[in-house]
């Protein structure tokens, strides 16, 4: 089955220790997104890639970086995690094509990040 896969499902890191979360997709979608979701809150978009074009949200801290080496993979790097970065990180994909019709977005299972 085509899907969005995230690894690891659970990640524990220490304050200030860099961490990388990974996402892969078999849907061949051209857009990949990273969201941060804290308890009882809406997913907050950090950035997205439209093909190779990186699009950063204005309020995403510099501490968060991303890489998309190819269509299938996307990485979220947190350079110096703080306690406030503990959250669920969700990867999503969509096949955005021009035109008026909607484009569904599909999510992976998420990575729960704990910062000690």
């Amino acid at each position: 089955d085509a899907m969005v896969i995230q690894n690891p499902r659970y990640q524990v890191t220490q304050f200030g220790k860099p961490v990388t979360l990974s996402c892969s997709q078999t849907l061949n979608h051209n857009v990949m997104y990273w969201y941060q979701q804290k308890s009882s809150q809406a997913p907050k978009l950090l950035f997205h890639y439209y093909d190779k074009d990186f699009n950063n949200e204005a309020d995403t801290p510099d501490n968060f970086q991303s890489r998309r080496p190819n269509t299938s993979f996307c990485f979220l790097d947190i350079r110096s995690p703080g306690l406030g970065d503990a959250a669920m990180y969700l990867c999503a994909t969509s096949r955005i094509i021009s035109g008026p019709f909607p484009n569904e977005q599909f999510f992976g299972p998420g990575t729960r990040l704990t910062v000690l």
Partner: protein
Amino acid sequence: EDQVTQSPEALRLQEGESSSLNCSYTVSGLRGLFWYRQDPGKGPEFLFTLYSAGEEKEKERLKATLTKKESFLHITAPKPEDSATYLCAVQAVAGNQFYFGTGTSLTVIP
């Protein structure tokens, strides 16, 4: 500014007690409205896409409807396994972003 508001924040229902969840939106040109189900500790699971006023979609006990300013997710005769958070998101005509509401946490009591 594009905005999505969901109500109520939380809803407790007895098994079999039908109800509706609301999603109101303000967007500069609606391309699509989406409903997701999210279980604790998991990623959102896609349920429905709506994009024109008057449109309806159904899946088992769930029916989603759309007007020019809001969408409803109707739950008919819910069961305990329907307990989850239901998220609404909109996609504007311009841009690739999706704007999410904070969700409605539904608990169905046996």
